[in-house]
């Protein structure tokens, strides 16, 4: 592995970590789509700042872009507040409009200037090790500039999360309560928006605007399928993000394809794998548990059915092993096997094809009935 490769991977990992940190809160607060909007509209901030300074490397670009991100969110929210537009539509209105303005500005005014829009959308992480993009200080080479910037962003993000961990937690899971204990969740919301904007701006130089969305949403959502605890989710999501970065880099290397695209692909694959195979919330284990639970539930149901008809006129008909499936509307074979299980576990007896409860079965049935019934 050459030093250039190492640097690219480091930058990819740093970007993924910065994005994952914000992403966790976006996913939990159902704001993922704001990252989509923000990552598109930062372009207008960059364009305006660029026209004002004429310098593609000016730090003002960062400021302009962040402002544009925050502005986007405020615009979406004020549209929503009018009451005539819902949130999804508001987002769908604002970001294409701002993005279009940016595209037009570029095409009208910057014919001769080099403002590479495609690079904005796709990123140029592959150019990281170039000599012109290095941070040099006093003759020493401190590595790529973008890596330094990204690390700074990570530090800020971590700082924000540690400082306001309690507030973030409360306002994420119970905004009403956070208001009740006397701090305004809106400030936390704004802080989060600010941090998402900054992160999006810094990251999309590397991975492009659309893939920022992937790095914010996918690792966080993957972690969300693996844990319930916020702190663990944060750590997991960073690890998954780094995994996307490294695997994505080598996939791109192997295919000779876009690094950002490969990172997003890996992020998608990891999410997909987790979606199906996660130990507790994966689709397969959920199905498996449902199957077992279903069986248990059906046994309890059978017993409840027997109690409900015990001693009634229709008992002979309702509890007859041969017509049972007609009443419960189950598959005949399945009904037999559930009934057999009931007899096997000494919950019921079979007398002339009629199932009758044993004392044990009756207790289980009454307990099951109690579980369902709620006395408020």
């Amino acid at each position, binding site marked *: 592995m050459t030093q250039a490769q190492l640097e690219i991977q480091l930058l990819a990992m740093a970007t993924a970590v910065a994005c994952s940190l914000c992403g966790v809160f976006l996913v939990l607060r159902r704001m993922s789509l704001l990252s989509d909007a923000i990552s598109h509209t930062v372009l207008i901030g960059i364009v305006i700042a660029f026209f004002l300074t004429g310098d593609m490397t000016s730090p003002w670009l960062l400021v302009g872009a962040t402002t544009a991100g925050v502005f986007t969110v405020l615009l979406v929210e004020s549209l929503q507040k009018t009451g005539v537009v819902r949130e999804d539509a508001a987002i769908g209105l604002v970001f294409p409009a701002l993005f279009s303005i940016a595209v037009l500005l570029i095409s009208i005014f910057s014919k001769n200037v080099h403002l590479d829009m495609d690079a904005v959308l796709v990123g140029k992480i592959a150019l990281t090790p170039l000599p012109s993009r290095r941070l040099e200080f006093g003759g020493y080479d401190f590595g790529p500039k973008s890596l330094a910037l990204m690390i700074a962003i990570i530090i800020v993000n971590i700082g924000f999360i540690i400082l306001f961990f309690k507030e973030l937690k409360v306002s994420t899971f119970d905004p009403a309560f956070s208001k009740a204990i006397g701090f305004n969740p809106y400030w936390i919301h704004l802080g989060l928006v600010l941090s998402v904007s900054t992160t999006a701006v810094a990251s999309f130089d590397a991975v492009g605007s659309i893939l920022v969305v992937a790095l914010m949403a996918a690792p966080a959502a993957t972690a969300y399928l693996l844990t319930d605890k916020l702190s663990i989710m944060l750590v997991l999501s960073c690890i998954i993000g780094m995994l996307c970065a490294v695997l994505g880099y080598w996939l791109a290397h192997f295919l000779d394809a876009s690094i950002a695209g490969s990172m997003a692909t890996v992020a998608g694959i990891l999410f997909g794998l987790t979606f199906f195979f996660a130990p507790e919330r994966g689709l397969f284990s959920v199905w498996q548990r449902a199957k077992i639970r279903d069986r248990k539930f059906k046994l309890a*149901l059978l017993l*409840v059915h027997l109690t409900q008809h015990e001693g009634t006129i229709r008992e002979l008909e309702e509890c007859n092993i041969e017509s049972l499936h007609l*009443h419960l509307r189950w598959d005949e074979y399945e009904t037999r096997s559930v009934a057999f299980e009931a007899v096997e576990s000494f919950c019921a007896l079979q007398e002339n094809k009629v199932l009758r409860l044993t004392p044990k079965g009756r207790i289980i049935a009454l307990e099951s*009935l109690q579980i369902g*019934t709620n006395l408020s």
Partner: protein
Amino acid sequence: MTGPNDKKMEFALEINDLTVSYKDKPVLWDIDLEIPQGALVGIVGPNGAGKTTLIKSILGLLKPVAGSAKILGLEIDQGIKKIAYVPQRGSVDWDFPATVFDVVQMGTYGKLGWLGRPGIKEKKLTKDALEKVGMLELAHRQISQLSGGQQQRVFLARALVQHAEIYLMDEPFQGVDSTTEQSIVELLRELRNQGATALVVHHDLQTVKDYFDWVVLLNVRKIAAGPVSDVFTETNLKLAFGSRVSLGE
């Protein structure tokens, strides 16, 4: 052998061992219920007792784990055409671009077939229903500009348009002014007198005796069902609601 003339009177609804669950938590436990035709039935029970679930399973909107429901002796997919459903008011977006007339007219869609459009006959039916609930003057008002009671009247009219044999109503009195409540009750009585059956999810225990002939007490399982005078007793209520509830008489 039964002759053609003494055909057995079908039950309006015949529910057989119906169990509905959310994951492994039973919402309805092995319900058996037979509702005679022409009854005005109140479904009563505490929150989470499965009242809405019962209605939705009868309509086939929820799939039961076990058991079945029959509508006038027919399986659900056949019998559903004989039912008019009044959902909870909060279940729809009242900012939808539709007028009172549009919403009520939707009740005629079921009998129109795939390509049919509402024509003169349907418009007449719609107007009649609006007249009945006293909303004809507001026919062209946007639905977001209605009060809670008016919204409920619109839903009621949409059900009336269907000229169904059975009416299933989910909390029609929720958030409704007393005038509207009274006129809904009037209408229900009128429907019953014409031979229709109505099942109404109801909250206010005080009015059960005045409004309904029949009552179903529900708390996940069926506590009791039958004519109000037989079933709506202190003992049964305690079984359904726990010991804190009384009729306050």
